């Protein structure tokens, strides 16, 4: 069936209108929670709530654990990305699925799994507790592990794409100039993949900062020890709504800053 020129114009015009309305709906959906939070923030109580010991403890703990978790995710994720991008290792496909699993696993499910694996009676946690006397649940270390678990896929995704996008001729040139594998990786590969690693680490940090389900399930909830900001918001919602909103706005601000810093890098690292 062939269309006439006016019919085509009308159809395209109709599609444009539909796209416009859908985009507007999406914008409202995204902007409304942010606007509502800002409108309801108890700005006058900011000093009082900002210096509350429980709030300060949650802020400090979140900052500490998320940075450690991002570091752990990076140290563990870059080698995995390397294996996936640069080797012909059999079972790479399975490794990739495993590495990306925390991305799609519901956080509470992740927490349950961590508990069964690394809890006091866990598959590995049991022997760990008996041999070394170390238990992860109810400890800050447990929080870091839970956060690193959910943040790892972000590093692997971004860095693998970064490694894949590199042209091998730079590394080949370095090889002909006498550089060994480790020097080539350190001086050529890693710097060239820098933006991808950078955005991977940032996204991992953001994810670690916002982690809730796995943290509360695996590490528990104790102010100063395991109560990160998302947990504090969750509990404050039932006790002190103002404190909850203030913490929420703080997390919102950090998220926005992160995204602004990532602009341009986000698609560069992931979409290639």
């Amino acid at each position, binding site marked *: 069936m062939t269309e006439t020129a006016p019919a085509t114009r009308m159809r395209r015009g109709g599609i444009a209108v539909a796209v416009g309305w859908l985009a507007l709906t999406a914008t409202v959906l995204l902007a409304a929670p942010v606007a509502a939070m800002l409108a309801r923030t108890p700005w006058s109580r900011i000093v009082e709530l900002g210096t509350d010991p429980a709030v300060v403890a949650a802020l400090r703990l979140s900052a500490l654990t998320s940075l450690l978790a991002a570091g752990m995710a990076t140290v563990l994720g870059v080698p995995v990305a390397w294996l996936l991008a640069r080797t012909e290792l059999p079972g790479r496909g399975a490794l990739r699925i495993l590495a990306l699993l925390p991305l799609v696993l519901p956080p509470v499910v992740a927490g349950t799994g961590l508990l069964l694996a690394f809890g006091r009676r866990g598959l590995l946690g049991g022997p760990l507790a008996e041999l070394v006397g170390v238990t992860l649940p109810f400890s800050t270390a447990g929080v870091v592990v839970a956060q690193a678990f959910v943040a790892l896929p972000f590093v692997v995704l971004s860095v693998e794409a970064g490694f894949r996008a590199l042209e091998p001729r730079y590394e080949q040139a370095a090889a002909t100039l006498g550089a060994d594998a480790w020097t080539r990786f350190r001086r050529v590969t890693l710097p060239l993949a820098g933006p991808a690693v950078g955005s991977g680490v940032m996204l991992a940090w953001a994810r670690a900062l916002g982690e809730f389900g796995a943290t509360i399930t695996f590490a*528990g*909830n104790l102010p100063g020890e*395991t109560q990160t900001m998302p947990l504090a918001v969750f509990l404050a919602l039932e006790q002190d709504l103002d404190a909850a909103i203030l913490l929420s706005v703080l997390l919102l601000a950090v998220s926005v800053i992160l995204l602004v810093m990532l602009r341009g890098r986000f698609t560069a690292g992931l979409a290639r």
Partner: protein
Amino acid sequence: MRRRLLAALLALFAAACATADDRTITVFAASSLTDALQAAAADFTHRTDVGVRLNLAGSQQLARQLLDGAVADLFISADPGFATEVADARGTADGPLPVATNVLVIVVEAGNPHGVGGLADLGGPSLRVALPAPAVPAGAYARRLLEQREVRVEADTLEPSVRATLSRVTLGEADAALVYASDAVAAGDAVETLPLADSPVATYPAVVLDDAPAPELARAFLEHLRAPGGQTTLVDHGLGPAPTTGAAS
């Protein structure tokens, strides 16, 4: 043809929804009532053909939801304060009327491997203790009890509901916890229970909401819980009977 089929399916779907909504009540109840209410609700549905949808969580969470306008017929709180707060905000068609009582107990892993003898032992430095968070009614009762007995406990985790607290012990992560007697009964052989003398007694006031979708059915369920049959079910699950005062408490 396709359009008619679609219309028929939609009509069927709508009819199914309508039937479900007409004879169902939504009950928001404290998590410590989980097993008891599930049994009582099953009994009620069997007798009256009215479905009961249970939303079980910490009373403080449910109160928050109701104050934010959640739709419900009946609210059963583990703390009179929350019941009153919701009744004042949403209006009450009936209640607060108590349906049960509960006491706190210590639960430990089966076999009591750490030899916990009583409340004082919970203060031991190497014991991993789970307590309900202070905002949870059970947490508030637990705090009060510990203060009265002058036992300083450094909890390893403060959980958002009593059932979450119990799960720490059943999972083997905590050595001991303070929960309700009904929670201990629900855990069965997975835990050992140490009763407490002079435990604070929690009362569960129930409120039929003014704007409940099915207030008559909600009242019927409330009466079912307070009747001898319902009370037996609740007691069978570790709860105490509702206080039998003439006036509503």
